[in-house]
């Protein structure tokens, strides 16, 4: 088991570097970015004084702007690994300060949507498999398709509209107005939970449909297998039979779908938080890109991708813990 974890961690390292490369490429991509603008601004406001010149050369040194690309990359990576993600010109604060709280909230939304989609997909998938080709199965499959076909932001808009029309209030934001800039407390936590259900449902629905299909199809396959017949012939019945044998095996591919659902969820959380005005990394990212505040944007992208990577690792470990066949590979 430990060897398995070690192996997976080892593979993660090159992937992490590729992620950092992609993120850095994104940072450098826009032609003329915030640093240039910032510098132009300085010159415009204060003129080309000695002070300004010093500031400019300090900046150039800090970001290695006159040096070849790969040197810039290494300087950046060096700082990143120490926790210094650079400076945001838009907010005029270090990037690290801005993103940690936002990322934590992104994480909360992502995890809760994941749990939501599991909680829904699990019983529905099992039901669909046991009663396959029944009316109930067709109904859920149809529902799943529709859920799959509604883009996250569309669902957010529709729900916002529906809530507004029926309840007359707008369900935006993660906190009620009185809790926004207040330090954390139990009350604030409860308030957040009250608002959390909306993004959780919106982000979770897209993933749910896929999970239901996977569980249904895998369980259907397993139900036909000989070992299930053996169990029946032994005299095992009902739920116990279902849970102990075919479900146990069908769960494995179900769990491993976390691997591809996680990027979907983080993606969905990003765009939903823009529509719903949630203080997560999505809105900040969008803004940063519109303003071409690239160090902020690149850092967010890299951290989101790394979160996905870690999530996938955790799900693989979970899978290995449950399925004895994997451990012995």
């Amino acid at each position: 088991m430990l060897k398995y974890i070690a192996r997976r961690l080892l593979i993660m390292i090159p992937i992490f570097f590729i992620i950092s490369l992609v993120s850095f490429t994104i940072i450098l991509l826009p032609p003329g970015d915030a640093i240039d603008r910032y510098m132009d601004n300085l010159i415009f406001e204060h003129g080309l004084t000695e002070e300004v010149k010093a500031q400019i050369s300090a900046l150039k040194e800090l970001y290695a702007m006159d040096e070849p690309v790969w040197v810039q990359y290494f300087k950046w990576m060096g700082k990143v690994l120490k926790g210094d993600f650079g400076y945001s010109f838009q907010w005029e604060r270090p990037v690290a300060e801005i993103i940690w709280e936002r990322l934590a909230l992104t994480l909360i939304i992502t995890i809760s949507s994941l749990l939501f989609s599991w909680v829904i997909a699990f019983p529905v998938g099992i039901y669909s498999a046991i009663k396959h080709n029944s009316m109930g199965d067709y109904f859920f499959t149809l529902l799943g398709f529709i859920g799959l076909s509604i883009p996250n932001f569309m669902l957010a808009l529709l729900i916002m509209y529906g809530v507004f029309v029926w309840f007359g209030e707008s369900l935006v934001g993660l906190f009620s107005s009185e809790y926004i800039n207040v330090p954390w407390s139990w009350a604030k936590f409860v308030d957040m939970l009250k608002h959390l259900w909306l993004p959780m449902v919106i982000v979770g629905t897209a993933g749910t449909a896929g999970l239901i299909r996977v569980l249904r199809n895998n369980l259907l396959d397993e139900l036909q297998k000989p070992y299930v017949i053996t169990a029946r012939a032994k005299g095992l019945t009902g739920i116990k039979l279902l849970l102990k044998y075919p479900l146990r095996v069908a769960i494995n591919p179900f769990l491993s779908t976390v691997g591809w659902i996680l990027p979907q969820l983080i993606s969905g959380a990003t765009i939903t938080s823009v529509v719903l005005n949630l203080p997560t990394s999505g809105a900040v990212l969008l803004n940063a890109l519109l303003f071409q505040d690239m160090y902020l944007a690149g850092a967010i992208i890299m951290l989101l991708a790394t979160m996905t990577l870690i999530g996938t690792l955790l799900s693989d470990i979970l899978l290995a813990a449950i399925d004895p066949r994997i451990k012995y590979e």
Partner: protein
Amino acid sequence: MELDNDLLLKMKDLHVHFMTREGVVQALNGVNLEIVNGEALGLVGESGCGKSVTAQAILRIIPRPGKILRGRILFRRKNGTVAELTQMEDHSSQIIDIRRKDISIIFQEPMTALSPVHTIGNQIIEAICLEREITRKEARERAIAMLDLVGVPNPKFRIDSYTFELSGGMRQRAMIAMALSSHPNLLIADEPTTAVDVTIQAQILELIQKLRQELRMSTLIITHNLGMVAELADRVAVMYLGRIVEKASTADIFHDPRHPYTQGLINSIPKLSNPRGEKLWAIKGMVPSPYTKIYGCVFHRRCHKFMPGICDKIVPQTIEIVSGHVVDCLLYGGVNEGRNYD
């Protein structure tokens, strides 16, 4: 119909059909079988003739879309009562009880028939606990004893092995241990050695023989391997396309086969004593598609003693040759009494 005292199981006129999208498959068409207390009955036939469906019918585990259309199966349980297996619902508590206590089945491919994610100990203990009230500790000890009985070396250690960690022969032994742990009245072995190689086959055969003698168990051995039948069975029933065509003692089947199909099967076995250069005998034709409905005798298209105008029109009756040896063939009579088609 009553169950005679010396019989353990009696199957009469069993019809099982599968309603598939492509057509109706008449898997069993009036099967009559008797298993005597303590005997081993061999059920022989080519692939697709319905042998496995017969076993599934007894345990009521026929997969959808199969259904028992008519016929009766009477079975004497361990507690002495006679149960009518065909009267029970698929999931009734009665049949579940019978599966747990009175009848066990071992399947062809132990790798897929055993759970891939549980230890064999877990599966055997489960069978033991289903049969009676027992503590897990005691159940575990009994499981180890069973593994020892079937010849698994180092059972205390092996009991915690996963299915995929065992060799083919071990797996089959584990499955036998699991089946026997509930001390059934009737053991059904569905092609028990088909999936293992020849040396292991011999070991498994020896094992089954030994267990039969020690446990005084009745066995239904389903196979297409005539060699196994010769070794293990007391009596043999030959099956073709959903019907039993001949029933006799093992000796009679081999030395005095009456039905042309049985004769064909016996003749097809290459013998060392045959003169060199002589062509191998083969039953002509092929097993027809399961969707076909055949008029008259079900074997007539491939029969080397085919009587035109008779065999393709009249369904054969069951004729008794001598006591204990019956044939369904128009060669031996029944032409005037026979009905035209089913």
